[in-house]
């Protein structure tokens, strides 16, 4: 569906995207992951036809974004990072305008607006002025806009940015629902979010592709060296004996806090050791009052991916 080949984008002397290549197959939900300034937005903007690459080629559905831009844009729904809408317009009015602009036939405009509104749960606010809506509703209006012309490809730049946890959950469910009918490419700098919605991730760092892998592989990366904290009602020695096998190199600290013991260790393998901890506690009849995994942060994964070094000044050939 999307094929990016050796794409580079320079702004003046700054290279925002550097020789990037990846593909997204039809029906996939792919997350573009990276810290701020990794080139996520620039990449998505180039696919959406807003920016032109300095070098390389991008095709969407076999059409060149550079040469056949209008046709590509007709088949693409793009939601920029900050849902920017015309505040003076009413929601339904705005969606009808956008539908017409994106070539939805006149007699279908009303139906498509109603369907997109239903899908995004903005039916109740269709007659409200956009400027008076909450951030969450505005985000959903922007999403309804990207869907209204039934595009094959959806490009969503940080779709949950600035939403509260409840709204983030709703947005996530929405995106998962979209996956049934569209190919979705979304960006995020929040790992768990991508883990929950995407089947595959593309990790960018400083404009370069660091990894493109199924989300399961990413989960394994996250588990690797993840720090586990468990609190059980048992003596520290017994806890140490029971859990040492799960810890990397058998290193484990067990501190007693009253009649509770807090065990801390790093996971040994790629598997999440938490179920094993819970099972051990159950087998021994210990009460378990806390069990958590401090997963590696995105930064730590980047460090791991670049061989333990911050990817500064990599020698370019």
């Amino acid at each position: 569906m999307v094929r990016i080949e050796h794409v580079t984008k320079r702004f003046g002397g700054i290279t925002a995207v550097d020789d990037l290549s990846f593909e997204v197959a039809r029906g996939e939900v792919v997350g573009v992951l990276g810290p701020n300034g990794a080139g996520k937005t620039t990449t998505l903007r180039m696919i959406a036809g807003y920016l032109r690459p300095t070098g390389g080629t991008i095709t969407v559905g076999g059409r060149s974004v550079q040469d056949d831009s209008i046709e590509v844009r007709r088949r693409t729904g793009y939601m920029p990072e900050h849902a920017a809408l015309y505040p003076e317009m009413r929601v339904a009015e705005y969606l009808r305008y956008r539908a017409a602009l994106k070539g939805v036939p006149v007699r279908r405009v009303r139906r498509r607006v109603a369907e997109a509104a239903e899908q995004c749960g903005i039916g109740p606010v269709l007659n409200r002025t956009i400027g008076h809506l909450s951030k969450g509703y505005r985000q959903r209006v922007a999403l309804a806009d990207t869907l209204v012309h039934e595009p094959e490809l959806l490009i969503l730049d940080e779709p949950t940015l600035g939403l509260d946890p409840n709204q983030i959950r709703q947005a996530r469910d929405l995106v998962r629902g979209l996956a049934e009918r569209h190919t979705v490419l979304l960006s995020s700098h929040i790992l768990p979010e991508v883990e929950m919605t995407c089947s595959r991730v593309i990790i960018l760092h400083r404009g370069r592709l660091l990894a493109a892998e199924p989300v399961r592989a990413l989960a394994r990366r996250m588990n690797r060296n993840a720090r586990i904290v468990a609190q059980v009602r048992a003596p520290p020695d017994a806890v140490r004996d029971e859990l040492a096998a799960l810890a990397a190199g058998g290193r484990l600290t067990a501190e007693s806090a009253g009649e509770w013991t807090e065990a801390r260790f790093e996971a040994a393998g790629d598997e999440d050791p938490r179920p094993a901890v819970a099972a051990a506690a159950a087998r021994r009849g210990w009460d378990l009052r806390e069990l958590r995994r401090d997963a590696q942060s995105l930064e730590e994964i980047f460090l791991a991916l670049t061989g333990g070094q911050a990817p500064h000044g990599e020698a370019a050939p």
Partner: protein
Amino acid sequence: MRTFLVLWRRELLAYALSPTAYLVMVLFLAVTGAGFWILVAALAAGPGAAAGATELLGWVFLLTLLVAAPLLTMRLFAEERRSGTFETLMTAPVRDVEVVLAKYAGAVTFFAVMLLPTLAYGPLLRAAAAIPPPADPAAMAGVYAGALGVGAFLLAIGLLASALTRSQIAAGLLAFAAISLFLLGGLLPYVWHTATADRIGAYLSPVAHMADLSSGVFDTRPAAFYAISTAWVLFATVRVLESRRWR
């Protein structure tokens, strides 16, 4: 074509919902109305004052436009760029030229609507006067076409200024400066009393062009001048939009 119409409608709606647009319209009518009143008063005083008074009304009209054109156009691109709606707009299947022409058509349409109430001046005068003055419909049509043409050119300058920056104020000031420079060209004969200055002034002065039209003279040179200049400025605006993709 449908894309253009959809965009144009949205521009008209934006004017209809903009307090600034109404304010500009009211001020424009107040100032040109005052100018018209002065003209009538001068004409009533005697035929000798008439020539100077017509010119005065021409300048009043242009000075209002000097302020009105930047105010009506500074928002057009600058605001979309600042708020980010520009990105949503330009990733829809629209051509740069369609966006420029639709925004421009919206501004010119609003300007034409702004001129409409002044059509009442003639009938009002005739109704109020003891001896109805003679009316020349052709000259009237000529003057309105001229006013629309001059206005359309100044609005194009404002549109270009708006495409150059994401600050509305900067766009407004830029348009104001550019239009001032253009109007100064028409003032040259007042400063230097030479044949060259007169020639340049005759080419550039919208007041002279409108005065010709009001006396029933249609000169193709100013018509061509405004048409070509407007087309050129709009073309430059399209190029400015295109250049954004490369930056």
